């Protein structure tokens, strides 16, 4: 059994750690690239959203590398993602590239099902070994997020953005290769030392919250590297969700005490009181939270045609008005034009800077 899975940002590091320690044969798809998009777009229905197309591209590229089984996330509720696994399987079958599809439904729906699926994948190994593998993967997730958070902080500050990106790439590669926790601590120490040597600008800096549909937020390829673009424009970005928080909530059922998204669901009221699928409610709640914390703005991303985020988008103006926080929404897919994205981001940055300047003058 040669298992593959679809990319979502740095998730591959965590998945590789987990699978390798469970003794599974992982076939990692090549990093999502334009070729992935071309493959996905060629065979996916035109009106399906970007994640389906990118996933499908990943599967096709993994198939070329000899994968025969796919581990895919499922889902419940109004978001179409819940049946993507089935649609993708049909498409692959029709192409004569049949692979086994193992769908992990969220554990909040059925723990027993998750347990059975894991058993069926890993075969006869002890629960203790499974626990250790999960714990190790979790450490990696935390290490990855530590690096990412640091980079988000440094991007607006550094005079040498290329060097910072190089440090980031190095650190992530080493975390991916690390074989124990001590090694990871060492990598983080090295990374921090490298960063400390970078000359930095002094502030103040604009602060922007980055919200939206999870895949688009976490996958730089899908969001056209928006975090980096904003960083280069002098903005400190805070994500509404990080990989480790997502893993904790969706795979561990929120067992660990990590700051996640549950509290933001509550903040979404009274604007949006019910679950609308995907991350629509979290988008509204996170925007409220960023508004309360005095952020300069919120950038909201979603795949083109994403229903839950369209619902959220229609509510954001009310939040924006009440908390005085400007928002900018991008619907993204393979048709998005980079020039338009860059222009709108630059204009949004100017807009936020002008508001700051106005407030500064009023306070004088």
């Amino acid at each position, binding site marked *: 059994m040669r298992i593959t899975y679809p990319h979502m940002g740095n998730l591959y590091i965590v998945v590789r750690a987990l699978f390798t320690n469970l003794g599974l044969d992982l076939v990692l798809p090549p990093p999502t690239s334009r070729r992935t998009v071309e493959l996905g777009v060629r065979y996916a229905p035109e009106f399906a959203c970007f994640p389906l197309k990118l996933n499908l591209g990943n599967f096709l590229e993994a198939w070329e590398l000899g994968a025969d089984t796919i581990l895919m996330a499922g889902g419940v509720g109004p978001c179409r993602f819940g049946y993507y696994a089935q649609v993708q399987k049909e498409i692959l079958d029709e192409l004569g590239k049949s692979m086994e599809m193992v769908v992990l439904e969220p554990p909040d729906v059925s723990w027993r099902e998750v347990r059975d699926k894991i058993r069926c994948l890993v075969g006869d190994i002890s629960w203790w070994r499974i626990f250790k593998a999960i714990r190790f993967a979790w450490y990696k997730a935390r290490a990855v997020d530590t690096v990412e958070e640091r980079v988000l902080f440094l991007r607006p500050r550094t005079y040498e953005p290329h060097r910072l990106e190089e440090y980031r790439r190095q650190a992530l590669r080493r975390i991916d290769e690390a074989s124990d926790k001590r090694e990871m601590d060492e990598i983080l120490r090295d990374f921090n030392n490298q960063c400390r040597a970078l000359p930095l600008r002094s502030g103040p800096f604009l602060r922007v919250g980055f919200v939206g549909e999870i895949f688009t937020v976490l996958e730089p390829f899908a969001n056209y590297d928006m975090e980096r673009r904003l960083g*280069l424009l*002098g903005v400190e970005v805070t994500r509404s969700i990080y990989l480790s928080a997502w893993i904790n909530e969706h795979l561990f059922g929120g067992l660990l005490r990590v700051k996640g998204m549950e509290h933001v669901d509550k903040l979404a009221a009274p604007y949006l009181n019910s679950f609308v699928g995907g991350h629509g409610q979290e988008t509204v709640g996170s925007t409220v939270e960023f508004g309360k914390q005095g952020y300069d703005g919120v950038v909201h991303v979603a795949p083109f045609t994403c229903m839950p985020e369209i619902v959220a988008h229609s509510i954001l103006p009310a939040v924006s008005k009440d908390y005085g926080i400007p928002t900018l929404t991008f619907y993204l897919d393979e048709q998005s034009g980079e020039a338009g994205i860059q222009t709108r981001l*630059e204009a949004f940055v100017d807009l936020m800077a002008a508001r700051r300047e106005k407030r500064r003058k009023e306070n004088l």
Partner: protein
Amino acid sequence: MDLFLGIDVGSVSTNLVLLDAEGEPYVQPLYLRTQGQPIAVLQQGLALLEEQLSPRDRICGVGTTGSARFLAGVLVGADVIKNEITAHAVAALKIVPEVQTILEIGGQDSKIIILRDGIVVDFAMNTVCAAGTGSFLDQQAFRLNLSIEEFGEKALEATNPVRIAGRCTVFAESDMIHKQQMGHTLPDIIAGLCEALVRNYLNNVGKGLEILPPVVFQGGVAANLGMRAAFQKALQTEIIVPPYFNVMGAFGAALLAIDHAAEYGETKFRGFRVSEIQFQPRSFICKGCPNACEVVEIRQGKQVLARWGDRCGRWGITEQDSSQAGRSNLKSIS
């Protein structure tokens, strides 16, 4: 005289504006057709400007904007490289300080900018469709054998504008042809088309935004009398078209250059000799990873002036080139 240069290189036109230190135009602004050759047209524009200057005139700051703002900025040595939205807002604010809404329709894009108390509070650009922009009007005027100026005037002769399907330009054209075959008069059809395009603009670009007066209409399409009238009718308010409506981007870029010079002094302008230099642009596909980025490189002789187009940054020549050009530096609160 100390002068400030603003350059807007867009899809259809390349505009150059020279302002004095007070922000007043010093010579007649240039509106040139880009014709797919931004570098050549920009050089031509610089040569034309230079002819009009006396030896005592001196360029003290340069700002660039438009879709080729980075390219133009590298070639001439710009102090400010600014997106079109901010540049247009700055220009409109100079002419109508109380402006609350800016309608801007250019060659291939259209935008709306909402301002309150002199600052931009919201904006939108066309994202999925270029219906109703200058290129389409040009094309329709050509099809009807009218100059673009006559095209706009004809609309004002309409007595009973027909209803044209304006969501998609291809269907709008079919619909116009259909209305012609039915025997409607040309003015009625042109006026109908303008109204359809305005409807499309307000529903798509302007959706959900509060359009309050004073409303300023700028960009190349603002020359079109039919479009002005259609906006007036749809918004039921006076539409202000500023005197330099078709070069407002360049005007704004020059104003930003004035501000920049006041704060930082010294300009990076490379001089009018830029108009005579041979620049060698080339593009290649990076084979470093499957992204296959199309990298563009601008050379002057053996020297590489700039490269862009790569996702990862490996082709950047210096830390500063283009990547951080649009950044905002905030003044500290204290």
